[in-house]
């Protein structure tokens, strides 16, 4: 296996040796098997090895990790039926295994394993492996303890109207949440595991015939190329399989809402659910996705269109308002109405810093306050708002360090950045705000427009799994326009989608 350079060589070596030694078949001797496993799980206090007699006097050995196995299931579902079997004599061990599989088929999903390495993998995933004396086969039972929290409302994507269920950290339950919404065998869920050490499970979800086969293949290929020791969150995957890892803009949708995933799947997107992360990835997406919420489709379409435009407007403000303010006040004061000029000049009269420095100070302070608000423990959280609002907002103005218009601009910008539904887009806008202010402070509106142009060029160059980022606006396609600038009524969206599909099928022929 090709390991990453960054990993210390020692661990590297150990892993290699380990993989080598255990890559062999199960022995027909219970004691040998026990020894092998005990060696593999040396210093693992949670490993349990139990010898039991089934069907009278046939000796078996159950091996499992105590912490991962559901105790009641183990007791009632497996151990009791095993021990309480009537005594039967078998000609060979294969018959015994056959009988066990048949008798215990109920709840514990038995399956046969023959390889020691696979056995170990099953054990670390929380299965119980039952070795039978004088057999080269073992039985594996899945009685995993489902460690998970209660289903909950997603706190980052709250809605007024719409389902309150959100994904949790358990892959199994997340898959169920999606399945529950799309009841068709065409909904495919392919299991993939990534991460050399962590062996993280993830499920690739798509609807056959709707999701383009090329995209599905592309996602699979990129996942196969990942060479990492561990995948602990969907953020890893987002970065690793992105078309453009160096852009601040998000090229994948991240969501905690099963209804959003279901809606995207129906649109022909591909979703990736990752074990241990409540955030699902949806791909490919375009720039406009970042300004849509799932609630847009649940409420009145006129109001949803209004909201969409409000988001576009405020996204622009979040990006450009501070820089436009800096540019106009320091370079083009004649552009402002006279009376406003006078009050702005009066506010600036006592301030020691140039407008650009002032803006940068306040923007940095705002970002710091925001970050502190996220990290602070909840009981202390109020302190931040008091300190932020009173000390920085009021006192700084009264002390004549910061002018009042800057406070207005920065707080408006702050509110504006929270209006963008996609957190990744919101972050991108926050990052780009700073170079914009610098451009504005050095080159005025000329600099602002140059920076905007640069951003636009960058955006047109982006793509998400082969889909141009700004489509259907550039390149112009009639298809999605009904759902980009406005939220058309469902009847129209639905009709349009049908027409496009028919057209595509015709083109195929």
């Amino acid at each position, binding site marked *: 296996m090709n390991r990453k350079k960054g990993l210390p060589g020692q661990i590297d070596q150990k892993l290699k040796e380990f993989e080598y030694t255990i890559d062999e078949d199960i022995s027909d001797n219970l004691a040998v098997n026990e020894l092998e496993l005990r060696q593999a799980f040396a210093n693992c206090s949670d490993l349990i090895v139990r010898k039991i007699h089934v069907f009278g006097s046939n000796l078996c050995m159950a091996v499992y990790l105590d912490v991962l196995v559901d105790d009641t299931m183990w007791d009632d579902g497996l151990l009791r039926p095993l021990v309480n079997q009537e005594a039967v004599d078998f000609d060979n061990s294969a018959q015994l295994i056959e009988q066990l599989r048949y008798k215990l088929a109920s709840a514990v999903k038995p399956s046969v394993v023959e390889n020691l390495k696979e056995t170990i993998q099953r054990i670390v995933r929380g299965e119980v492996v039952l070795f039978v004396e004088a057999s080269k086969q073992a039985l594996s039972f899945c009685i995993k303890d489902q460690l998970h929290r209660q289903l909950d409302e997603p706190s980052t994507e709250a809605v007024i109207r719409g389902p309150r269920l959100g994904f949790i950290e358990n892959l199994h339950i997340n898959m169920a949440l999606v399945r529950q919404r799309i009841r068709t065998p065409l909904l495919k869920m392919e299991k993939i595991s990534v991460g050399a050490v962590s062996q993280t499970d993830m499920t690739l979800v798509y609807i056959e015939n709707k999701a383009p086969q090329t995209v599905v293949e592309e996602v699979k290929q990129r996942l196969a190329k990942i060479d990492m020791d561990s995948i602990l969150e969907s953020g890893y995957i987002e970065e690793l399989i992105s078309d453009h890892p*160096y852009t601040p803009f998000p090229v994948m949708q991240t969501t905690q809402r099963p209804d959003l995933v279901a809606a995207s799947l129906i649109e022909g997107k591909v979703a990736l659910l990752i074990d241990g992360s409540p955030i699902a990835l949806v791909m490919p997406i375009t720039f406009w996705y970042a300004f849509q919420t799932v609630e847009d489709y649940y409420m009145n379409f006129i109001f949803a269109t209004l909201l969409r435009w409000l988001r576009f407007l405020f996204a622009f403000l979040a990006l450009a308002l501070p820089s436009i303010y800096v540019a106009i006040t320091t370079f083009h*004061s004649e552009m402002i109405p006279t009376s406003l000029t*006078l009050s702005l000049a*009066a506010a*600036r009269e006592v301030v020691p810093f140039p407008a650009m420095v002032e803006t940068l100070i306040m923007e940095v302070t705002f970002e710091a306050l925001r970050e502190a608000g996220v990290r602070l423990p909840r009981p202390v959280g109020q302190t931040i708002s008091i300190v932020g609002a009173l000390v920085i907002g009021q006192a700084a103005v009264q002390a004549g360090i910061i002018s009042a218009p800057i406070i207005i601009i920065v707080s408006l910008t702050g509110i504006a950045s929270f209006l963008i539904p996609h957190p990744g887009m919101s972050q991108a806008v926050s990052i780009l705000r700073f170079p914009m202010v610098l451009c504005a402070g050095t080159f005025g509106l000329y*600099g602002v427009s*140059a920076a905007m142009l640069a951003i636009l060029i960058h955006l047109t160059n982006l793509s998400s799994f082969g889909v141009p980022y700004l489509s259907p606006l550039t390149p112009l396609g009639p298809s999605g326009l009904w759902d980009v600038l406005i939220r058309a009524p469902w009847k129209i969206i639905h009709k349009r989608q049908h027409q496009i599909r028919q057209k595509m099928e015709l083109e195929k022929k």
Partner: protein
Amino acid sequence: MTLSRILYGCLTLIACLGLLTGCWDRKEMDDLALVMASGLDLADDNQIEATLQIALPTGIPSSLQSGGKATKPVLVISAKGKDGLDALGKLQQQLSRRINLGHRGIVVVGEKYARHGFDQILDTLMRSPESRYNSYMLTAYGTTAKKILNASYQMEIIPAIGINKLQYEDFSLSVKMDKFVDALASFGKSPVSGAIRIIKQSSGEQTFIIDKAAVYQRNKLVGFLSGTDLKAYRLMTGNIDGMRLTTQMEPPQNQYHGTITIHLMKAKPKIRTRIKNGKPEVSVSFKAAGRIISNDTSLDMSKVIPLVEKKFSEDIKKEIASTISHTQKKFKSDIFSFGNQIHIEHPYAWKTIKDHWIELYPKVPVQVKTEFRIERVGRTQAPAHQQKK
């Protein structure tokens, strides 16, 4: 795209930004002397005296700086120089902040200077990229620009903004610099501007009034239009916003004053020209409509509308005809741009007469036709205070 390509792209962009900027004019707002109005006068020694009214942001009361000693909201300074820019340069030497003309809304020219002619200043006003064409041109009536700019005004914190608003509302006559220069530069039109003067209220306070129009011939002031002349001029330019006309319909009686007042709603002046035997003739037709807003006669408005219409029509005709003859005889200045109309309608004939149009204009025969229509009479027919019989 590789990282180095992005880097090169950024570097090129920054280099472009640096090379392409023509003017580096970063100025913080608190480093600017915001000129609100400027004035130009002819000093005794034939030098030009420039006056600036500069807003002082510290003097503007705001919620943050309540209390304390009130400072003056404006600073008015003057200096003499060979021309406007020379004087401006001398003014700059007195100021710790840079003179910024971006917000100048008013340019006042003293009467003496206006009568002397001020071509050179106009060039400065038009040429400098900092000065804006949409400043209002005003001529000081009977006084100097310096006195106008030094006067205080109660209604606004900054007097120049008061003048600006007076002009913006267009209660009398407002002419912007570009329009003024445009008229000056064309043969078939003479420039006019609003004329401002200071009056003393009974309380002793000063205030501005713009109730006259300054009439120029070429670049020299030749006189002022006021009262009905100004009204007729405004009618002829179609600028009738809020204009009222009053006529004596009946001789005054005990109970009634005999007057009717209308509010003008529409005015449509039309100038037609003819060339007869190589000589131009002008006919003016004027159509207007209004509503009656006051009736102080014994007449019932529902019955006498044609009579009232005729009376107003005659009144307007008289006023317009007399104003035109004024401009012909007294000022010899074609402020109604009859010349331009000849240019449009008879371009070939215009070529022969345009050079001596100024001499020709006073002799051009002008016919005036008017038509007046009353569109509404208001809520009552007879006068409200008429006793019921």
